[in-house]
Each structure stands twice: as C-alpha cells, then as structure tokens.
C-alpha cells in the first residue's frame, strides 16, 4: 500500500504540468533575477575594500619598540604587526580587503557615526585590540573575525619567540621576561636583551613580526568564512530556503487532496479501508522525494548555472538543503493535518509562514534577521526560513563548526516536532464531503 501510493503520487506530481512549472520556473526566475539585480553591485562590492578607522595609541607603539629590536625611532602606527597584517589582507582578485584610515579617536568616532567607516580598530597594545561597530552585518562580522583571529594568533607569534629562545637563537636570560612572554604580555624592557637581539638576530625579528603570506591567507579565509564574503549571498540563502519551504505547498495540496472534504478522489480514498497514517505518510514521502529533486536542481542551477559562490563546503550545503526540504515538507504535512480547516485557510496560513518568515529572515532586508535575533530570538528558532538561512549562513561564515551544528540541531528539532505532530493528527481521518461549487 505504502509503495503503491508513493509511486502513484510521485507520478501525479511529475505529470502535473502546473506544479512542475511553478516549482521549477519560479525559483529559477527569482534566482536569475537576484543574480541580475545584485550581479553588478556585488561584483564591485567584492573588490571594494571595507573602510576601517585605525586608532593606535602611543603606548602600543612604545610597546612594539620595546620588544622589537629591529624597530627604530621612525616606527609609526603603520609599522605595527596588526597594521601590517590588515594591509596584507586581500580578496581573491588581489585587491586589498580593507581600506585603513589612521586617525585619532574623535575623528574615527565621527566617521563611524557618519558611516564613512564600518568600524574602528583601536590598538592599545600588541595584543590589546578593540573593535567598535555601530551596526550588525556581514561586513562587521568580517571585521570582528579578523580581530579575533589576530588576537588568538598572537599566541603563535609568542610560540615562535619561545621556540627560538629554546633553540638558542634568541637569548633571554631574564626569567621574568620568559614568563612574561608565556603569559602573552610580551614586554621586553631590558636594554641588555634588546641589544642582544639587535646585534645577533635582526632577521629573526623580521620573521616574527612581518606577517607572511601564508598567515594572511589563513586570516583572510577564516575571516571571510570559507571564501566568499558576498553580502548579497543572504538573498540566495533565502531563495534556497524559500524553495525548501515551498515544498510545504505540494505536501499540503497532495495530503489534503486525499481528504474526503477536499476532492472526489479523496472521498473515494476515505471510503476505502486504508490506514490513514500509512496513506498520509506515503503521500508525504512522494512529495518529499519530488521536492528534494526540485531543491537540488535549483541549487545546482544557482551554483553551476549562475556560478554563485556559496562558499564553504558544498556537501554540507546540499545536506542542509535536503534537511531544509524535509523541514518544509513537514511543515506542509502539519498544516494539512490540522482538523477542520478549509484548504484555502491552510494555504493562506502557509503563505503567511512562507512570506512572513522570509521577510523576518531577511528575504527583503538582509539586516532583518539580526534585528530579530536581538529583539526576539525565539522567532528565529521557530521560523523555518530563519532556521534554514541560519544554517546556510553558518556554513559559509564559520565553516562546519558549533554554530552550524547548532543551526542543524534546531532544524532537526523543528522537523521532528512537526512530523510527530502530523503523524499524531493523521490517526484521525478528516471528515466531511467535497462539494465543488
């Protein structure tokens, strides 16, 4: 029974021209439209550097001079390791990622306020760096990433120093200094040491403090989450999320068509001795199969047809899309299972969830989701589009890490909840007779 119904409904779906037309043509059209609309914007924004103010305190310069024997009096803010690294960060096309404005605190604040810059990087010491931003967004996330990666990686520099000391290249006799190095507060104030380093190993110090390409690439990649920082990508995530959620419509349609109150075929099914749960599950499975195919086709079109770089691991993107389709279909299954509603009502509930959810998760304004996250995070946990875009976003932004796992976790929880509720609701047949007038 299960397999027969499954096959019959799969055939029904594939052979319904209007369904095929809508589920395929619609995402394709919208995807292409997004592509055309944002194509020019983001191709320029990609190589456009992010404007940042850099405020370097005198203390930081002094500290640097103290530890770096090669440093002369001519050292300026631009010579600090952090500055060198910031300067070295490049997009794929080798254009600089950041545009740096070295200025004083007040001017920087003014610029941030007037949105001339996206953030202020305040350098108070080698490892004492603070980022100020005025709003949330992808660009700001990138800045935050750069800083946090830099901070966590100064320990690598320290390790380098330590290992050099151990290997004898760098002699630091003072116990105090060694411990200082270890704790991260690298301060070499001893004249003797400085001169020792100076006399023997200026090349070594170069090596320590000048960022190598490998390192900047590492920071770039980390900061740019995978390798695409395209802020308009959120629209494509939303598009894929919408295609996934749209699966709910075909499930709703098919499951309801087996209700006696919604179609004559449904009346026929209802007078037959079928188990309603098996019937509904097999219709659900047929729709799910169909919708997964649709989602994958859309994704393949976006990635390989339009050449949109989703960043991150493609395998996980596809996995997320499949799970998302399961979520969408479960949503439709659940709405179809609620007793005593007219199909029209069910459809409009879904429309509201889809469009409203899309709106709240940033289909129209990319910033919407972070606003909701601040004000009412619960909505982002139960809004299917938000849960789904979040998962995509995490892959790209943070790779397969905690945040992605958390997003997938919410995705799976929501799906399981909806599916179980649908199955429980399916135990009772929907009554009534269909009257087409």
């Amino acid at each position, binding site marked *: 029974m299960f397999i027969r119904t499954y096959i019959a409904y799969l055939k029904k779906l594939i052979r319904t021209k209007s369904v095929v037309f809508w589920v395929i043509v619609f995402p394709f059209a919208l995807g292409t439209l997004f592509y055309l609309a944002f194509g020019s914007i983001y191709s320029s924004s990609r190589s456009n550097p992010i404007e940042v103010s850099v405020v370097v305190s005198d203390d930081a310069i002094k500290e640097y001079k103290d530890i770096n024997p090669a440093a002369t009096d001519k050292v300026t803010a631009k010579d600090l390791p952090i500055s060198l690294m910031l300067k070295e960060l490049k997009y794929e096309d080798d254009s600089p990622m950041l545009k740096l404005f070295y200025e004083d605190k007040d001017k920087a604040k003014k610029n941030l306020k007037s949105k001339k810059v996206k953030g202020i990087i305040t350098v108070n010491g080698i490892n004492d760096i603070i980022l100020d931003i005025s709003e949330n967004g992808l660009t700001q996330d990138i800045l935050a990433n750069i800083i946090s990666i830099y901070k966590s990686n100064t320990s690598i520099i320290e390790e380098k120093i330590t290992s050099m000391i151990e290997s004898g290249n760098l002699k630091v006799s003072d116990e105090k200094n060694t411990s200082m190095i270890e704790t991260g507060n690298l301060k070499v104030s001893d004249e003797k040491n400085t001169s020792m380093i100076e006399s023997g190993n200026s090349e070594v110090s170069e090596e320590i403090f000048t960022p190598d390409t490998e390192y900047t690439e590492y920071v770039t990649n980390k900061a740019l989450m995978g390798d695409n920082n395209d802020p308009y990508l959120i629209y494509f995530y939303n598009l894929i999320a919408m295609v996934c959620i749209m699966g709910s419509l075909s499930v709703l349609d098919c499951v309801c068509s087996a209700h006696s109150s919604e179609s004559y*075929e449904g009346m026929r099914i209802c007078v037959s*001795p079928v188990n309603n749960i098996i019937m509904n599950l097999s219709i659900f499975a047929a729709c799910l199969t169909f919708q997964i195919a649709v989602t994958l086709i859309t994704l393949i079109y976006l990635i390989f047809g339009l050449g949109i770089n989703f960043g991150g691991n493609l395998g996980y993107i596809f996995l997320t899309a499949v799970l998302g389709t399961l979520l969408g279909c479960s949503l439709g299954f659940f709405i179809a299972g609620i007793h005593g509603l007219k199909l029209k009502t069910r459809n409009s509930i879904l429309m509201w969830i889809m469009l409203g959810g899309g709106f709240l998760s940033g289909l129209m304004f990319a910033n919407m989701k972070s606003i909701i996250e601040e004000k009412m995070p619960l909505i982002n946990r139960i809004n299917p589009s938000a849960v789904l875009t979040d998962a995509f976003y995490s892959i790209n932004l943070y790779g397969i890490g905690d945040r992605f796992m958390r997003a997938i976790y919410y995705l799976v929880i929501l799906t399981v909840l909806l599916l179980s509720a649908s199955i429980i609701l399916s135990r009772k047949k929907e*009554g*009534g007779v269909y009257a087409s007038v």
Partner: protein
Amino acid sequence: MEEIVRVNNLVKRYKDLIALDNFSFSIKKGEIFGLLGPNGSGKSTTINCILSLLTYDKGEVYLFGEKMNVNRNDIKKRIGLIGQNVAVFNELSVYENIDFFCGLYINDKATRRKYVEDALEFTGLNDYRKKSPKKLSGGLIRRLNIACGIAHKPELIIFDEPTVAVDPQSRNNILEGIKDLNKNGATVIYTSHYMEEVEEICSRILIMDKGHEICQGTADELKGQIKNTENVILNVKYIDESDLEGLKKIHHVYSVKYADKVLTIRFSGGKHNISHVLDYISEHSINYERIYSELPTLNDVFLEITGKELRD
C-alpha cells in the same frame, strides 16, 4: 433474506436546513434498491451518512448487520462507491487509476492484476488502458469512474447518480452493467432523479423528498397506490377555457391541465378513455396535432403524493 443495509431514524442538519428528517429504510441482499427524489431531496446526504463520510445528528446505520462508523475498515472493504462526480486522477492513466483504487482494497499483486483486467473488460475500457482520463469522452470517463469503484468486487455497490450528463447510449451501457453486477451477486443502491432509469433497473424503489420517505415498493406497487390509471395527452395549439371544463366532465377524468401547448387529461379507472376524448374533440372541432395514451409513471406517483413534479 440477509439485511445488507439498515438505516434507522437518520437525522442530518446543515445549520438550519434539515436534510434528513428521521429517515429509515432497509435493503436486502441481492436487491437493486432505487433511491429516487428530486434535486436536493437528500439522496447524496443519505449515501454519505451511510458511508460515514458525514456525521449525523441522530440515528444509526447498520451495514452487513454491523454498526457502521468511520473506523470500520472491515465493513468498508465490502463496499464500492461510484459517486455523483467523477473521482479519478487526471495525471494517471486509465489502468493506473483502476490499479490505484483497487490497490486500496486488494493487496495481493496477482489478484489485483486480475481484478483490474476484469474491470477493464467489464467497462469496455480495454482499448483505452494507457490513455489519460483527460482524453476520454464524457461517457468513457463515467465508465472509468465505475471501473474504479467496482474493481475490488464489492458486495454492496452504491451508485450516486452515475448517469448525470451522459449520452443515452452510454447510459444504457451503464444500466446494463449495473444489472450484470447485480446478477453476479452484488447488492446495489442506485440513486437518481431520472424515474425511467430507476423504473428500468430497480427491484425496489424508495421515493424521497425533503429528507422524508414518500413511499416505497416495486414500481408496480407504487403505481398501484395512486388513483391515476391512465393519462391521455394531446398536442394542441389553442384551446378554450370552456373546452377544458367540458373535458373534465368526461367519465373517470379527475384532472385536465393545459400548459406549453400540451393538454394532459388524467383518468382514474375506466376503459376506452382515449376514444371518449376523441369523441369530445371532433364534436367541438378542436385542432390537435397528436394524441396518445400513457400509463402512469413514477412521476405521477410523486405528483399525486406531493402535489409537485419530480422533475423541475
């Protein structure tokens, strides 16, 4: 004889409207039971209540001697429904449709294949098995609708106006088919507002109106209940009021009606009634085009009991 259907005091309300008003009847094994009534009299409502597609406010339904409810899959197994409207999937072929609906009842693959072939054969759809229902003519699609309802060889088959909007030839096919099914052992409920059909195939008829039973019995029994025995009908272009009065005075005539250029004279009893009418007409030089005599129909039964025509 075993009682297949028993309906006790069924009451069904749609808000203010009482669609079934303490409606009761029973059907024995092997009958073709006709449920005859004008549009909106409650035939489909009755069927839907019997099948538990609708909930009802009062009363009981027993099928095969057991109380029917939504969850009685064991009872549902033994029933086939051919609804008032075509219920097939347009996206599936003729064969796939029959196979799908038969599959809701018959799990065994070999049996099902045989049953589907039988149904194709029975409804004469063998040549169309691969066709999409969309490409079938009105008559053929009705046959497909029947095939889907009977493929699993049910013991009780319910037809709800299967001949609506069907050409006369297909209609005859369908009626013959129903008789065959009955001969093969199925008990049949047949609802219609076409009295000729009901009269032709049904072994017992229940006439209903506004959710009530008007009368029931065989066609002859029903006709025997009324005083009307013969109707003489004339096509007349014009007739005087005085002549209508005059015709009424003929022996055994109890009603004379002139409408739409048709003059209907109803008799209760009497012989050679038509010649008495002819005598009067030639005497008063009334011009007529055609004259004929008819035995009372179920329409007359309905008319006499309810005071209105069965067909509107």
